[in-house]
Structure formats: C-alpha cells, structure tokens
C-alpha cells in the first residue's frame, strides 16, 4: 500500500502520541473527578446555606480551573494529531472514527465551555440555583467528552460495526450503535472515568491531609476528606470491578494483549496470574528461554480472569503467533500469508479497474473478499511484529493492579477514621494519603500504557498497523514537533504545578 515505509517517522509519531496522551492524562482524570466533587460541595452549600461550604467549594474550584486550562491546551493537540501525524489513518477509518470526535464537540465541549464561565464568574451574576446547575453541567460535560473519546478509543481496540470498501480503500461504518455500545466502549468509559474519580479523591485527601498535618483549615479539611473518601471508595471499587471486565473482554478480543500483560508465552489450562515477577526481556516467540527471571504465581487465576471458568485454557503468545490446532487458534504466521494475498488482490483489483478491465476486476475482487479479514496482517513483515513489548505491558499492568488494590484500603481507612471522628489523631495516615495521590497518577498512566502499548503494532486492532496509519512525511518534521511539544508541555506543567502549590499554600478563605 505504501511504496516505502519509513520506520523512523512512525516511531517519532508514536512517541509524540505517547507524549501528548500521557501529558493530557495528567490533567484529565483530575478534571473528571474534581468537577463532580465541586458539584457535591456546592450542592451541600446550596442545601445548607452555610458560607463555609461556599468557600470550600470556591477553593477546590480554583484548583480545578488551574488544572482545566492546561487540560484544554494538551487536548486540542490530540484531536488534530490524528490528522497531522496519522493522515492515512484519518482517511482509512475517518468514516467511523470522526463521528465520535464530532459528537464530543457538539454534545460535550460546548457544555463545558459555556457553563465553565458561569461556574467561575457567575457567583454574583446568576441565581444560586442556576450556578449550581452550571457546576453540574461542567461535571456532566467533562464526563460526556470522556465518553465519546473513549468510544473512539474502544473502537480502535475492538473494531466493529464497519466494512472495508475496496473502491474508496477505507473502512466504512455500517452500524452506529455497534460502535457506540461495543463492550470496549463501555469498559473503557467506566474504567477510565472511575479511575479519574479515585485520583481526584486522592487529590482532595492529599491536600486536606497536608492542612491537617499543619493544623490549618482543619474544619474545611475534615469536611473535604469526608466527601472525598466516600466518593473515592465507591470509585475505587468500580475501578476494580470494571478492570476485571476489561481483562475479560481482552481475553475474548485482544488475547495477545492479555498474554503480554501476564507474560504468558505458552498457553495452558488453569493458567496462573504472576503476582510478582521479573520478566526475561530477551525472550522471543518460539525460543526455549524462561519467560521470567523470578516469578511468584497464583495458579488458576488467569483462567478465571480471562474466561470466568476455572481450569480453562488461556492462549499464550506462542499459540497466537504459531497457531494451536488443539484449541482452534489461527496463528499470526498463517494470517500474514492470507493478508499478503488480500493486499495483492486489492492491488490487482485497483489496477484492473483503472485499466477498465471489468472481468479481471471482478475476479480480483472475489479473491480479495476471501482474504479481506486478514488485510491488516498483510502489512506485517514477520510474525514477531505482532507481539507487543512484553516487559512494558507486564510491568505497567502489575503496577496498575497493585496500586488499584491499595487504593481501596486507603480510602477505607480514611472513611473509617472520619466516621469514628479520629482522623485528626491518626497523623500516620497523612503521608500515605499523599503518597497514594502520586501512585494513583502512576497507575492511571500505566493503565494507558497497557491499553495502547499492549496492542502494538496495531492502530486499529487487527486491521491497520501503525506503520501504514502514519502520514507520508519526512521524520525530521515529526521529530521537531515532538520536541516542540515536549518543551512547551513541560514548561507549562512546571508553571501549573508552581501555581497550584502556591494556591494550596494560600489555602481557602476562612469564614469568620
């Protein structure tokens, strides 16, 4: 399809996407959750009429605003990056992928943009009730925007509701609801947003713990912790529940990702989860090296996670690469062969059509249709290419899962001591609360690494590898923009953190 494939352009484009997405995800989870927390706080203010709750709301809103601005700044790049760095992708799947992005703009961004101004500057311009409504609208708008972009991402993981059109050489949508209601769309949305709620709860808990440790704003801090620990506990339980669902659908639709997450090279019945392990980074498909340098396994757990059936078979990387007749698994090796035929017949169809030879064209098309499901594999050069980086995927998954489990315990502790009224005496908990705020960030980023690195080499799972999806452009351009964004985002992040720390130091206004 492409005459020459310039790997360095695709790698710079991938690096740029990773950079911008990971920067964006520093700000988005806080936006998703903090806006709901602000809405809770303001609801309590409107219900009770107490000025203290208003000042508390305004304080968290101020921090929200600082974070929101840089979230917007990093977000615009992500949307347009699909065009600038992934032009072939934009054409080949734009018919499906563009829709959720446009819907995001229509139904979500305008809610945020319109009501944001009321939230910040409308205290004396609109009624109390309308102000509260506006805050809720910003919360709903932010989360709706997450919904649509995650529908888009879910479709990249599990492409559905579409068909390839050989005349336009692109995938075209066949069923909008299949795209929107796909299990991946739902799983991505619930898992990512609830993880944002949990992180935001830790943000509030960490800052409030800092105030308690310093004996400043004690009443406000305790109130904030009370609300945030309840929200955080519910959210973190949801994260665990939706995470289990994510692993289950990975087992069905992205078995290679699941195998990489657990470093499972040879499929087995009663497959274990590796609770702790050091991956042998040198291992390649088909060799006889040990997959782990050190490992501590929990037998049978992966079978349960992947199939919800004790003792069931979970395919490993080698089964997926070379195939496994016993379990009816077609290997990548086989799929590449079929894919090459699809590529060849598509080219023949195109050439015949151009030449006006209709018989030849229809013959070529019939042959293409036999192999079209493997078109994406036709662009791979070796089966090894279909294996994602195992170490990165494995470690990211395990860090995420470990932190996710820890979060539940910490939220429980904060809630327990708040309910007992002894949160002020249990000062030992504060540094742990602050630490978990940082860990929640790491877990969130690690989660995206699992989701995206774990499905390499695919831009669209099984259909479109990243090396075909990229723009035809000299690497120097993408390299230059990579560093432009790196420098700009880093400087803006430093500015954001400094401003944030200063505002935390100033603290909320005390009501006399």
């Amino acid at each position, binding site marked *: *399809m492409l005459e020459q494939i310039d790997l360095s352009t695709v790698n710079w484009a991938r690096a740029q996407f990773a950079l911008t997405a990971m920067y964006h995800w520093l700000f988005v989870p806080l936006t998703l959750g903090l806006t709901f927390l602000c809405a809770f706080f303001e609801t309590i203010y409107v219900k009770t009429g107490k000025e203290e709750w208003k000042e508390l709301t*305004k304080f968290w809103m*101020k921090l929200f*605003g*600082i974070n*929101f*601005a*840089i979230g*917007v*700044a990093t977000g*615009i*790049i992500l*949307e347009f990056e*699909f*065009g*600038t*760095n992934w*032009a*072939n*992708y*934009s*054409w080949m799947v*734009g*018919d499906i992928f*563009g*829709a959720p*992005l*446009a819907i995001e*703009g*229509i*139904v979500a961004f*305008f809610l945020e*943009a*319109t009501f*944001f*101004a*009321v939230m*910040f*500057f*409308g205290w*004396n*311009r*609109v009624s109390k009730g309308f102000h509260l409504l506006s805050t809720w609208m910003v919360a709903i708008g932010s989360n709706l925007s997450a919904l649509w972009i995650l529908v888009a991402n879910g479709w990249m993981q599990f492409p559905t509701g579409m068909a390839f059109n050989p005349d336009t*050489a*692109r995938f*075209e*949508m066949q069923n*909008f609801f299949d795209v929107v209601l796909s299990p991946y769309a739902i799983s991505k949305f619930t898992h990512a947003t609830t993880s944002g709620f949990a992180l935001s709860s830790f943000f509030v808990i960490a800052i409030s713990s800092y105030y308690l440790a310093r004996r400043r704003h004690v009443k406000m801090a305790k109130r904030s912790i009370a609300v945030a620990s309840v929200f955080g506990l519910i959210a973190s339980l949801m994260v665990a529940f939706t995470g289990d669902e994510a692993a289950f659908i990975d087992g069905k639709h992205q078995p290679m990702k699941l195998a990489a997450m657990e470093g499972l090279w040879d499929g087995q019945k009663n497959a274990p989860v590796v609770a702790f392990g050091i991956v042998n980074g040198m291992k390649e498909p088909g060799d006889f090296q040990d997959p782990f340098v050190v490992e501590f396994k929990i037998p049978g757990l992966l079978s349960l996670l992947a199939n919800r059936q004790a003792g069931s078979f979970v395919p490993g990387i080698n089964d997926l690469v070379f195939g496994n007749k016993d379990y009816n698994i077609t290997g990548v090796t086989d799929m590449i062969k079929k894919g090459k035929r699809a590529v060849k017949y598509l080219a023949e169809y*195109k050439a015949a059509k151009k030449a006006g030879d209709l018989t030849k064209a229809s013959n070529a098309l019939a042959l293409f249709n036999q192999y079209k499901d493997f078109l994406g594999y036709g662009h791979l050069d070796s089966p090894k290419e279909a294996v994602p980086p195992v170490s990165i995927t494995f470690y990211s998954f395990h860090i995420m899962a470990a932190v996710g489990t820890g979060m539940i315990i910490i939220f429980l502790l904060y809630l327990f001591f708040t309910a007992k009224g002894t949160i002020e005496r249990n000062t030992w908990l504060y540094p742990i609360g602050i630490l978990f705020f940082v860990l929640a960030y790491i877990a969130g980023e690690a989660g995206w690494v699992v989701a995206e690195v774990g499905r390499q080499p695919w831009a669209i799972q099984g259909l479109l590898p990243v090396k075909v999806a990229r*723009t035809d452009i000299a690497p120097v*351009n993408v390299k230059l*923009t990579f560093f432009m964004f790196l420098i700009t985002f880093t400087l*803006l992040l*430093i*500015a*954001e953190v*400094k*401003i944030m720390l*200063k505002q935390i130091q*100033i603290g909320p206004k005390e009501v006399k």
Partner: protein
Amino acid sequence: MIGSLDLATLQKLWWLLGSVVGSLFLFLTFVQGGQTLIWQLGKNETEKSLIINSIGRKWELTFTTLVLFGGALFAAFPKFYATSFGGAYWVWIAILFTFIVQAVSFEYRKKPENLFGPTVYEAFLFINGVVGILLIGTAVGTFFTGSNFVLNEYNLVKWTTPWRGLEAAQNIFNVSLGIFLVLNARVLGALYLLNNIDFSGMDAFKTRTRNAVLSNFVASLPFLLIVLIGLLTMDGFNIDPATGIVSMMPFKYLKNLIEMPIVLIILLTGLGLVIFAVYSARFQNKDSGIWFAGLGTVLVGLAVFFTAGYNHTPFYPSKADLQSSLTIFNASSSHYTLTAMTYVALIIPVVLAYIAYVWKQMDSKKLKAQELEGPEASENY
C-alpha cells in the same frame, strides 16, 4: 425524513453545517482580536484587566468552536482532514501551537508563581491573535488558490513540497485574506469591548476603543480589496459535472457568485453590516455594533465557504494534480455516516439555545472595574 436523504444532499448539507461552524468561529474571533488590543487599548492595569476579563469569559467558546470545526470536518469530510492536516503539516502545527499557549494564558497570567510573569502570557495571547488568525486565513485562502498534493489510488496523500503548507504564505491572496481576518478580528474585538464593559469614569479608554474600531477597519480595507479583486478575477478550479474532471476556468469564482446570486447577496449584506457596525460605533456612539459586525462576519464567512465548495467547485484543490482535488462529493464520509451524523446534528439548536441563554445571563450586567478589585479580585483573570 433524514433517513431518506440521498448522498449528494447530505454532502451539500454537511458543507453547509461546516460553513456555519467555520463562520461562527470567525465571529467569535473577537476574542483573538481583543487579545491583540490588550497593550494598545489598556493603558493601565485596570484597563488591561477589564479587556482580559471581558473577552476571557468567552475564550473557551471560540476555542471549542474551532475544535468542533475540526471534528465536524473529520466526521463529514475525512479526506480533507487527512489531506490537509497531514499534508499542510506546518501550517496547522503553527496554528495549533498558538492555541495551546492561549489556553493557559487567561488562567495563569495573574496567578502568583506563574513561572513566566504576566507579560509573557499577554504575549502568548497576542501571538494567538495575530499569528493564529493570520495562518487560519492563509489556510482558507488555499481553498481558492490550491495546494500541492497528490493522492494515490488508495486516496493517501503525498505533499509535493518540503515546506508542508508554509508555501501558501508566498501567495499574496492567501496572506491578504489572513491579514484581513486579523484586522477584522480586531474590529470585532473593539466592538465587543464597547458592548461588554462599563466604561463609566473612563472616557479616554472608551474613546480609544471607539477609535480602534475605525482605524482597524480602515487598515483592513486594502487587504479586503486585494482579496475581493483576486477572487473575482482569478482562474478557478472547476469540476465538469458530466465527467467529474477538474480543470482551470477563467473567472470561476466570479461565475460562482453570478450563478448563485443568493451567495452574492449574502456577501454584500455581510460586508454592509460590518460597515454599518463600524459607522454606528464610531460616528453614532452606539455600543451594539458587535451584533451587526458579528452577523456580517458570519455572512461573509458563509459566502466564502459557499463559493469555495458549491457550484461544481473543488473546495480543496490541488495545483500539483488537478484530479487529486477534493470536492464535497469525493471527500465525504459514507452515506450511512453522514445520515447518522445528521441525526446527531439535530441537537445543535439546543446547544445554540443554551449558549445564547447563558450568554444573556452572564452579560446582562456590563463588566465593571469595581468587580475586578477588592476582596474578590483574585477570583478573576
């Protein structure tokens, strides 16, 4: 009813919707225009703060409209999205860059410990207002003057110059359109400030703002003239409706206006409204000019987009290979997707209604200098 629309109707409808969003964006560039007036009109901290807080409550609306313009084009005309963003790479990157620095500047400018100090953030706003809008205008100019790309049989883009879109800045028509949009944004910005700020006790500030309306309009006239003369006299890209073959045609865009008289009327009405707004603001001391100039800008924008895309005209033509040119018919999404998106678009009136309602709620009282001082000062931009 929507389900029974044929593909060509949907393609025309989505070019219309895209044109509306693009034209509304041009109106909302009063924010960018205002950003370039901060130093010129604001002679002290209070005046500067008034300007920034006035337009600062609308910046996200402009930003979001730009994002939607991109998103709508992606969904409706993905080939344009792929060809232009991937092809004219550096123009879009430069535009986006000015919007990144804009997004943080209102919020961070006055906050303590902001790393750069307020002047740098004001400079970011200035750059966004000048460079951002100039390049957007230049990019729109290529809808008429053409770009340098070839599409292969898989519809994948290859750009034929290493300048990746920056070469558009060599064309006087493109650049004039860009400069005109910058100056028009400044006219709109000054008009918006006149309408939005309570100038009581600040007569000199108000006079300066009124004068800026006229001076920027006068400065824009030569560029408007170049654009209009260029548009009416240049050879344009034409699609043969029978064969679909694209060729050059003398006076193509003049012909479009004559063959679509409604577009000509829209264009002239739009220009007339802008002139009326400038006149009423400067010579009749009226403060409502923004509404006339705003509507006028929207109408001019619509006329420009309609001339570019309707009447058998490729809206994103290629100079390098005429047959690679993008038309609303060959660049669009499938029938199914356009239909689905049209159902979604039914929500747009609701969106416009709540934006208008909130706008009215927030701006019914003019912005006073006193609001920006006192105990609540730190809650403003």
